[in-house]
């Protein structure tokens, strides 16, 4: 009878070990440990950042390492917080999990630093606000976003007799018509194939980008109330329901990368896709809306990863300095250069004009980065997203029940969850 009870019990056991930072941690200075993501380009960025810091700070050295392997980074971080052995900084903190980490007592309030809120708001501008908790404090440093757009395979569009340079994908009707042409012509078994699986985060790659675009950047929960059971939400859900019902999007998860394998002619992706799909002749457009709006007006989901300063850190003063160093204009430039991901920084395209001029494929993402929406804050974000995903799977993906009634019901449930402590 191992897994059933002990999955929770073992983690509870770890709560009895380790130790947090001492009382002087906030002013502590000395060596620190940081974790960064384990993808190749971010490892390269992390290593050069650590090297640059260490060269100038012999008494406050950074030890950098890839985040330990686990089912997800969030579970690894959650276990590390409980065990009291989280590093000082983690450059891979998902905003959806920040509320839980805060509730666990695992994160340091960056607003409590002398220049904390000022530094964050000066760097990220208006976008910073959505990374505050419900009391207006910053328990995460907004770091980088991967604003999602639609990638399409130009060769497959051409083979289907579509205009590959100016594809009709701006409205729901256009998107559906183009999808029908793609599938009926036989060039692709799926027009687009967002993961139809049940994980809570999949909502961020089908419903949320389109809802953000339809509403000009409305979060799915605002002021403790679910927002999505409105006309915009209904239209987005009905659009996707039509895609699944007509077989334009498959209900089975892809094995491998559907876009690279040409199982789908389109994909919803962030700027990381530019380097990943270098063998595909791709084009990009913003996510569709009901009436079709220009790219300059379109909002989307951020797919951000932020930095957390963890309470187990003994040398928090050093960690805060490292955090500012690693999000400086110079290091953000390195981030763009090495990873193609967008620092959550105001005036991104002006600041790195040379980069975007030399890499025009990233220009659309650089522009889109200023219009991104984040998951709602709070300790119950994952619970809300899971409830939404379950309802979405039932009514939209598998077509069981009325879409509008399903959204109405889950909106009530999400509001209740949002108002729980």
């Amino acid at each position, binding site marked *: 009878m191992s897994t059933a009870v002990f999955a*929770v019990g073992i983690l509870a056991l770890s709560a009895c070990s380790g130790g947090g930072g001492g009382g002087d941690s906030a002013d502590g200075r000395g060596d620190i440990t940081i974790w960064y993501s384990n993808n190749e380009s971010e490892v390269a960025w992390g290593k050069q950042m650590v090297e640059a810091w260490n060269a100038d700070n012999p008494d406050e050295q950074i030890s950098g390492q890839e985040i330990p392997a686990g089912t997800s980074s969030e579970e690894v971080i*959650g276990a590390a917080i*409980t065990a009291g052995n989280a590093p000082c900084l983690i450059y891979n903190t998902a905003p959806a999990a920040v509320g839980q980490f805060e509730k666990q007592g695992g994160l340091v309030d960056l607003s409590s630093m002398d220049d904390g809120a000022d530094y964050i708001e000066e760097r990220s501008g208006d976008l910073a606000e959505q990374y505050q908790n419900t009391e207006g404090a910053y328990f995460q440093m907004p770091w980088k976003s991967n604003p999602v757009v639609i990638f399409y395979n130009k060769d497959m569009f051409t083979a289907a007799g579509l205009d590959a340079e100016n594809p009709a994908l701006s409205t729901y009707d256009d998107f559906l018509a183009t999808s029908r042409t793609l599938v009926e012509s036989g060039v692709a078994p799926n027009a687009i194939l967002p993961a139809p699986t049940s994980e809570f985060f999949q909502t961020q790659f089908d419903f949320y980008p389109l809802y953000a675009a339809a509403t000009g950047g409305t979060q799915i929960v605002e002021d403790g109330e679910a927002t999505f059971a409105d006309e915009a939400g209904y239209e987005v859900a009905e659009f996707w329901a039509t895609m699944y019902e007509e077989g334009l999007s498959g209900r089975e998860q892809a094995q491998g990368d559907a876009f690279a394998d040409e199982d789908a002619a389109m994909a919803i992706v962030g700027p990381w896709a530019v380097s990943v799909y270098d063998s595909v002749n791709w084009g990009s457009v913003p996510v569709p809306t009901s009436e079709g709006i220009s790219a300059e007006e379109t909002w989307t989901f951020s797919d951000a990863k932020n930095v957390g300063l963890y309470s187990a850190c003994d040398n928090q003063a050093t960690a805060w300095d490292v955090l500012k160093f690693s999000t400086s204009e110079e290091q953000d430039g390195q981030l763009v250069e090495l990873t193609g991901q967008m620092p959550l920084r105001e005036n991104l395209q002006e600041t790195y004009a040379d980069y975007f001029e030399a890499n025009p494929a990233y220009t659309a993402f650089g522009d889109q980065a200023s219009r991104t929406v984040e998951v709602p804050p709070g300790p119950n974000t994952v619970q809300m997203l899971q409830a939404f995903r379950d309802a979405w*799977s039932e009514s939209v993906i598998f077509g069981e029940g009325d879409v509008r009634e399903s959204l109405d019901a889950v909106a009530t449930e999400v509001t209740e969850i949002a108002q729980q402590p």
Partner: protein
Amino acid sequence: MTAIATPPGTPGSPAPETGGKRSRRDSRGAPGGTNRRGRPLGRNPIGLLFSAPYLVFVGLIFAYPLGYSVWISFHDFFFTAPGAEVDRPFVGLDNFATALGDSAVRQSFVNVGVFLIINVPLTVVLSMVLATALNKVVRFRTFLRVSFYLPYVAASVAIVAVWIFLFNGSGLVNQVLGPLAPDPSWLISSVWAMPTIALFVTWKGLGFYILLYLAALQAVPKELYESASTDGAGAIRTFFSVTVPGVRPATVLVLLLATVTGANLFTEPYLLTGGGGPNGASASPVLIMYQKGLQQGQPDVAAAIGVILVVLVLIIAYLQNRFAGERD
């Protein structure tokens, strides 16, 4: 005569003597009620030494977390960093009410019930029949045994990928079935998803249970088979009259193990059906525990689900032992 009729060491029996000398064991004090009372560590203290590491392991890794989980299930609990001071008030049965009030949790118990109804009998029957057949095979015996055992030792993650290729909409199984293939396909059908998982788990675990039965078959007296043959019993009659009763202790063990491991189903719905899909039709209680306890920050509700699951498994195990176990 008494010494022969009563096993040595039996309380009240005289200790055997060798060559007129008391045995070495006896010289130290023969085992028995009187001497055991004089040796608090029993007659084999070294045994305690050897078993101590495992007892510590069981205590730390199983007993303590189990007890802690039960405690969590009755309190308002969430994981915190060391030193964080939070109230964890006793909430009685609130977590159990929350768990059972959640339709996804109730659905998961129904799902795992369906899984066990398919998986456990199939495991018992197939492993017993295959072990009996393998026991008689002379040529390729090792090859066949290894072949059956290989899926058991292979990582689920790797094998799941193969099964997805076999059972997806355009997979080999549907190509063979042609118009008979279910629509929607196996892994996205609310009817077929759980039976497909049960089939996968049965196939994957079969090698282990075959080994248990092979070991049990070695203990069935050859004379019984000879006697059955002399009495004119055929292969099927011999199987049901000699083999099945002869391996009954192993059958009870297989029943218990298959039930316990089946109730802890997690990896297969997590990977094979994309997190318990379609639409929760293959979600298991442990998968829901994972979602609630580790993803959603509700370890108290997750612990309540776990406690309910343990109680249900204990009831099933008792019934299995009661009706399939040795009665003598």
